[in-house]
């Protein structure tokens, strides 16, 4: 009888629990603790203006903030700016209102003088800042809470450039901006404490952080530093990162090989975070010099490639990649299938005929790749064989990453190189949009379409023009997109509030125990 009553009580309790709103069952954020984050390696610098490396952006975004950032759905939302800018009717003048009462880590209050000095440094030091400087007519601080930017021509990517985490337009005190940086003073929810190269970068909670009051959305809105201390530790060996995740030594582990997801599933201490369609594997072609300057030959090369085989070789199964020709996956503002109908239609015989017709007569095609990213190498091996099957003479040059980076700017040294990149919310942030960047894509049609895209500020119209850009990429083949790949990270089960993001962030995250 007692057992029966007990069972009834348990059942009643379970039924009651089922009626409790799900939100009430969620663990509540709590303050404190230290989180160890395993990254892919030592950041080359902690100045995110100076580098486009993701690991720099990942760490530095906790210390430094930008005027704008990315909200849900990759909308641009204000961060240190008080609101959206007022843009003149001709699209050339941006007046940016600044938040007041924002404190730097050294106690100073942010003013427009700091913002102006920071943006001027950005236009001197940052790769993307220097590109922007060519378009900026003037930049002034008409009041302590306003920045005014006047452009030579309308330039829609400006807002994205002011939001990005790498080569970032971070805001620092005007009197603490030497190059290279010697102090790391920002406005972020965490302050820099210590760096032991190849051991850790230590950040601690900034108690006087001036948080926004609007609701959290992705990188935007209210940021709360619950965790007391963030420790970014470089663990370059991927196998060690996996074991570190499994053992619970690290609270968050970045950039794991996707094939390790099976080992992470069903574990007590850790669970995988899959970021679908994280990035693209890409082949850049030299459109300026040598044999691939001929667009007919570039089209023939694209026709020879079996993208599915390449992705299978690199990632092992369709759970880890998408055979998608659209540069932006479904759901993104810029999603378009324009031109993508020709994606992954490998036809060696037709490729051979196209190459011959374009005037190819057996010249060696120098194809640079690296083993430092395993999937680069595997995909390049398949691509080289595909090309050989279509009659191309391929010299696959396996170089270390540093050598490849050094060779890229010299167009006499290469015809193709393999690389990859995350899917960025603004297409003009990609280097192939810069005709001065390796690849040197610059044709009258390209210049016209890219100019139309860059100067258009209406989001809907931009999305339409992006379709034209994508169609042109498929037609002129300055790059070859090879599907999308997923990214994999891992988090300890006690770590809450972390969401998949290209640059994972740990404000608003908390530790359960």
């Amino acid at each position, binding site marked *: 009888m007692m057992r029966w009553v007990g069972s009834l009580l348990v059942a009643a309790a379970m039924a009651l629990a089922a009626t409790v709103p799900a939100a009430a069952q969620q663990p509540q954020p709590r303050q404190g603790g*230290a989180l*160890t984050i395993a990254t892919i*390696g*030592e950041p*080359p*610098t902690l100045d995110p203006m*100076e*580098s*486009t*490396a993701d690991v720099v952006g990942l760490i530095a975004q906790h210390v430094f903030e930008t005027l704008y950032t990315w909200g849900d759905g990759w909308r641009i939302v204000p961060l240190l700016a008080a609101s959206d800018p007022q843009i003149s009717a001709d699209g050339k003048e941006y007046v940016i209102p600044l938040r007041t009462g924002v404190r730097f880590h050294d106690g100073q209050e942010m003013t427009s003088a700091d913002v102006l000095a920071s943006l001027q440094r950005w236009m001197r030091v940052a*790769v*993307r800042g*220097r590109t922007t400087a060519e378009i900026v007519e003037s930049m002034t601080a008409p009041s302590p809470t306003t920045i005014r930017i006047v452009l030579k021509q309308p330039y829609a990517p400006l807002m994205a450039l002011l939001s990005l985490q*790498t*080569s970032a337009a971070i805001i620092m005190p005007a009197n603490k901006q030497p190059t*290279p940086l010697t102090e790391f003073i920002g406005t972020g929810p965490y302050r820099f404490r*210590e760096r*032991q*190269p*190849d*051991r*850790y970068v*230590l950040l601690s909670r900034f108690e006087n952080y001036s948080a926004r009051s609007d609701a959290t959305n992705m990188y935007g809105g209210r940021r709360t530093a619950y965790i007391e*201390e963030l*420790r970014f*530790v*470089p*663990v*370059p*060996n991927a*196998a*060690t990162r996996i*074991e*570190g995740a*499994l*053992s619970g*030594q690290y609270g968050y582990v970045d950039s794991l090989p996707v094939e390790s997801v099976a080992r992470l599933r069903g574990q007590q201490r850790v669970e995988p975070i899959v970021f679908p369609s994280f990035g693209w594997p890409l082949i850049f072609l030299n459109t300026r010099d040598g044999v691939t300057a001929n667009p007919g030959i570039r089209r023939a090369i694209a026709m020879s490639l079996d993208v599915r085989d390449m992705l299978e070789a690199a990632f092992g199964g369709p759970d880890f990649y998408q055979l998608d020709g659209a540069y932006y996956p479904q759901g993104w503002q810029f999603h378009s299938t324009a031109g993508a109908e020709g994606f992954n239609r490998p036809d060696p015989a037709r490729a051979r005929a196209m190459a011959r017709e374009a005037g190819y007569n057996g010249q060696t095609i120098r194809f640079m790749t690296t083993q*430092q990213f395993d999937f680069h190498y595997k995909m390049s091996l398949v691509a080289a064989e595909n090309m050989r099957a279509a009659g191309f003479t391929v010299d696959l040059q396996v*170089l*270390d*990453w*540093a*050598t490849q*980076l*050094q*060779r*890229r*700017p*010299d167009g006499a040294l290469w015809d193709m190189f393999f*690389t990859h990149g995350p899917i960025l919310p603004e297409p003009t942030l990609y*280097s192939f949009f*810069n005709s*001065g*960047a*390796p690849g040197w894509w610059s044709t009258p049609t390209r210049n016209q379409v890219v100019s139309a895209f860059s100067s258009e500020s209406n989001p809907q119209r931009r999305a339409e023009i992006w379709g034209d850009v994508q169609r042109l990429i498929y037609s002129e083949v300055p790059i070859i997109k090879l599907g999308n790949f997923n990214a994999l990270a891992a988090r300890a089960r006690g770590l809450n509030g972390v969401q998949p993001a290209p640059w994972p962030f740990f404000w608003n995250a908390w530790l359960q125990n």
Partner: protein
Amino acid sequence: MRQYILRRLGGMAIVMFVVATIVFVIVRVIPGDPAAIMLGPDATGADIAALRERLGLNEPLPVQYAIFLARTAVGDLGQSIFLNRPVLQAIAERAEPTLCLTLIAITIALLIGLPAGIVSAVNRGRLADQVALAMAMLLASMPAFWLGLIFIQRFSVDLGWFPVAGYGEPGASFLERMRHLLLPAIVLGLNSSALITRFTRASMLDVLGEDYIRTGRSKGLGEPVVVMKHALRNALIPILTVIGLTMALLLGGAVVTETVFSLPGVGNLVVSAVLRRDYPVIQGALIVIAALYVLVNLAIDLLYLLIDPRVRY
């Protein structure tokens, strides 16, 4: 002996000069550019050229070489391009893990290798000898990175006895830091013990066949005294040479083990510097490693004096 030491130190200066020159040439012959790495893959040629100018990499090579030699001669190994600190400081910061790892690993190697080699030699051809030789062969043929990963999986992940990697949390105590070194030291110690076992066995076998050993036994000396006092002491010189070489190699950085275990040691520093093309760090670290190599060998040569009174310099 003082003259001998001075002569060796003079020779060391020449070795250092040769090493410095070779390293300077090699790091500039290999392709790759620190400016390109620092700026990332989206940098243009103009960006890279501007940073090269700022870093002083556009000076003519003979000028760079002259500056490098002049600075090295006064003990200034330059400034790291990436770490934003003097090279000597960067090396000093990594000395502790490498030094401690070497000492623990060599201790483990000796604790295994010496007894195994002695037992093997004394029991030549018997089961104990064959087991010791097989173990030595097995340990020598297992790559350190593989053994490291297997140990991590078993002892760190499954059993939780050791941390997986790293050198302790910020502010970790000395003991905690040493705990992080134990597993990599065991891996290195096992690897190194194979060589010591084989050398000890070979050296002991040579000595055990000598007349004075037979004389000792015929005088009625116990086997432990014959083996440990008369045979081992005379067999020690080649063993000591191997220990010295192993130690010098480990001090130069157990590159693979440090990488697998993410230890911030000298080996890791050199690997990172090569990948980043941090020229001053590559040059400085290799010069320091070469100096250590020469010094350890000098110390071993001097130790011969203590072990064998017949040795004269």
